[in-house]
């Protein structure tokens, strides 16, 4: 008892959501995602990237906020919009760039591409091009954790659109029934392709629907890394404590089209400009950090430069890498003998 009274008043102050090091790490991750997306957008325009690209630009604080609280052996499953989640989880940026370019040394040997980006060393179990494909899988990952008696958690990312898919609902229900350490993390960017969430989501309340399944569900401003972190801490702890699943609905802006090349005729006038001006999580984070004296502008600029340099290297490496050998076509169809 007496030791408690000895505590200095400052110690009683609420601990900051992110300390300096944590913030700088999160900021670097967010910047890495933004720069990565900008870079591949550029290379896509030049014709250096095949297939479809769904960029994560604008949503960084959401994915980074939760992933910074996870360990390498915690699991995430992602969506078609998966680059950000992969980087946030610590994914190998150079391997990702090669993958997205369809090259040797790609993190999936060039077999997956943007929509199937993954980094199993970092617990990133893969982007998924089937909307609603991921949530049942994270239930399985969480089941592994529970069955094997670890404190790992699993996070299924999904969009507002994915929240309407039956597989998503089933996964939420099963996670509740089996009390699994699973987090259903919905990034509500307002759109499923060119359909607005206000049209497609019955009740217009993703978290509310999740809560009705019998789990805690939070809404959070996904442009604020501090707010996201705060909510996610509770969610992750809830899971690690064996109390069952949690849902988080983070509102985020989507700065780009549904896919690169999307003419976006469905957007409001000046909508994107306004979003970029008012809801850029990087700008918001910088301001807040400088104000809170967590970092100086110069420090953050330095990170930006380092990230830019890394992106340059990754792009060069990607462009320089050879395409896969045709002889690899039939490799890895099966793991065991066939």
């Amino acid at each position: 008892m007496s030791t408690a009274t000895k505590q200095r008043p400052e110690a009683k102050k609420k601990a900051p959501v992110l300390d300096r090091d944590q913030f700088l790490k999160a900021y670097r991750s967010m910047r890495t995602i933004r720069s990565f997306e900008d870079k591949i957008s550029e290379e896509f325009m030049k014709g250096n990237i095949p297939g479809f690209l769904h960029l994560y630009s604008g949503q960084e604080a959401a994915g980074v906020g939760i992933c910074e609280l996870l360990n390498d052996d915690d699991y995430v499953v992602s969506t078609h919009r998966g680059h950000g989640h992969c980087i946030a989880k610590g994914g190998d940026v150079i391997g990702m760039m090669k993958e997205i370019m369809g090259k040797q040394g790609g993190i999936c040997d060039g077999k997956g591409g943007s929509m199937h980006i993954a980094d199993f060393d970092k617990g990133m179990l893969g982007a998924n091009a089937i909307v609603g494909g991921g949530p049942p899988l994270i239930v399985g990952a969480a089941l592994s954790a529970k069955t094997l008696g670890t404190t790992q958690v699993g996070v299924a990312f999904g969009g507002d659109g994915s929240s309407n898919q039956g597989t998503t609902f089933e996964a939420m229900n099963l996670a509740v029934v089996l009390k699994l350490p699973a987090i259903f993390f919905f990034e509500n960017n307002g759109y499923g392709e060119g359909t607005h969430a206000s049209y497609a989501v019955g009740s217009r309340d993703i978290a509310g629907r999740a809560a009705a399944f019998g789990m805690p569900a939070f809404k959070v401003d996904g442009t604020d890394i501090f707010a996201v972190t705060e909510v996610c801490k509770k969610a992750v702890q809830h899971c690690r404590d064996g109390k069952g699943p949690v849902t988080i609905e983070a509102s985020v802006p989507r700065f780009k089209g549904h896919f690169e090349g999307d003419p976006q005729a469905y957007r409001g006038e000046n909508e994107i400009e306004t979003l970029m001006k008012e809801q850029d999580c990087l700008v918001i984070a910088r301001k807040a950090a400088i104000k809170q004296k967590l970092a100086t502008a110069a420090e953050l600029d330095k990170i930006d430069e380092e990230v830019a340099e890394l992106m340059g290297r990754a792009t060069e490496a990607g462009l320089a890498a050879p395409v896969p050998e045709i002889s690899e076509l039939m490799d890895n169809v099966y793991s065991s003998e066939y």
Partner: protein
Amino acid sequence: MPVKTYREAINEALHQAMADDASVIVLGEEVSGGAGCEGSRDAYGGVMGITKGLLPAFGEERVIDTPITESAIIGAAAGAAQTGLRPVAELMFMDFFGVCFDQIYNQAAKFHYMFGGKSQCPMVVRCTTGAGWSAGAQHSQNLTQMVTMVPGLKVVCPTNAYDAKGLMLQAIKDNDCVIFVEDKMLYDTSCEVPDEMYTIPFGEANFYREGSDLTIVAISNPMHKVLAVVDRLAEEGITCDVIDPRTTSPLDEEAILESVETTGKLLLVDEMTPRCGIAADISSIVAEKAFSSLRAPIRKVTAAHSPVPFAPNLEQAWMPGDADIEAAIRELVEYV
């Protein structure tokens, strides 16, 4: 006659069918696009642009944007078909069968039989298929065999704009559940297409070429690879019957069997994985019903037994290629 793309031909068929019959509706994800948004409606007209202009022409009651909810889309179409509408449902990619297949093969396909003929399910499921866009393992599969095998379904896979229009108009008139398979590589191909409405009956093959050395049956986009190779080899004096079944269910067995009876040799080309595919199916029909005419092994050129790889060079290697087709033709022609 006006020249139209495959995309335009299907779009025109939908416009005409909807104008002609008030019970025809269109539903699916982004069939107009922009629902609930501040910008323009009909922003997409389908991600492939096939349903463009339908919303302005026919309104939200008949051109229905849905959430991402394939089981409910197909189920709603089936339920509506049983109760007086003729829905054309869009399944954005054929790869998505997996999230709605029950409503296709256990429900829509079986109603008429299971309920003793008392229920009809006149609906069309449009779906985009095929590799070639580096769209990866979950957006590139041709799964025509998965529906062809299902009794109660009809399966249409047009290879040109003319057929696409006539078969779509037939599909909408048909009283069964029709799976309408659109190969993404064909959307921008074009040919002469009449402005007026016309139908092409199901189960009637089209002979793209006639010849005597060999019978070739090809499905969807690979047909065009076949035609290119065949036309090249014609210069060497090799001539082939090139048959497009146009519908895999019903299948025009007669056309294929008759051709094989004269040529004695058969090559099958499709872009499905090889096991239990259409190539295998037609091969087995011929090996059973025209065996005595056969003078050579029945050859199949299909995709590889693997998921569709992303890297463009691997994807090309995965698909049935010109070189594979040419080699198979030469091998068969030379076979004695």
